[in-house]
């Protein structure tokens, strides 16, 4: 199939998707990417809130620090959008590893990414992508989505989650 023959890019993770995917028993979905980078600040945040993610046997995470000076446009964006240290560092690392994908569930970080030309997606994207990449069946992901409010700290408005579920059902 054409879709699974394409080479996926590396991903740079913010804390949210790592924590949410682990809560949903779906951390292994990240193994589909050739490299999973976790910036220092994000690593510390995950270590504080869900340390098991960092030693999980299902996926190899690579701890990295930003190497280049912070781009002025990112500094301005971080101030305007009130980005946290982890989000800000994840954006820095993502800029250094283009064309990678930034994984974040934070709206402000995604706004900043869009303004900086960085491809960004979140937990929902990774879950649904797993159907296309044949990592999970449609029914398995529907089960995850339907139980998401009670299994995960990812907060989605009920009507929005229902829309996502309908999209998957009709796909």
């Amino acid at each position: 199939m054409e879709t699974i023959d394409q080479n996926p890019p590396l991903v740079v993770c913010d804390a949210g998707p790592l924590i949410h995917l682990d809560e949903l028993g779906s951390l292994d979905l990240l193994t589909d990417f050739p490299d999973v980078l976790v910036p220092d600040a994000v690593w510390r945040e995950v270590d504080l809130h869900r340390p098991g993610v960092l030693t999980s046997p299902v996926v190899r995470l690579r701890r990295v620090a930003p190497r280049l000076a912070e781009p002025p446009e990112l500094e301005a964006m971080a101030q305007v959008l009130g980005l946290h240290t982890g989000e800000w560092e994840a954006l820095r690392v993502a800029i250094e590893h283009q064309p990678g994908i930034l994984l974040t569930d934070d709206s402000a970080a995604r706004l900043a990414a869009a303004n900086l030309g960085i491809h960004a997606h979140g937990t929902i994207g990774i879950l649904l992508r797993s159907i296309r990449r044949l990592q999970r069946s449609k029914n398995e992901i529907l089960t995850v989505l339907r139980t998401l409010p009670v299994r995960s700290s990812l907060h989605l408005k009920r009507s929005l989650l229902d829309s996502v579920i309908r999209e998957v059902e009709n796909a």
Partner: protein
Amino acid sequence: MKMTLIQAELPPELTARARSYVEDGWAADFNELLADALRRFLESHTARVTEAFVMDDVQWGLHGND
């Protein structure tokens, strides 16, 4: 405009930076700076923005090519 009094705990470093910002003349006072920061946060976290990102995830997840 009717104002609401709130009490919040802030990290000392953040408070010091904010006060310095006010002292340099970039904001009229501490209250204005806090209100502006809160307004900007809420603007960037509106339901409309969040929903757009989630639906973008749906399209990428189901129909993307990477």
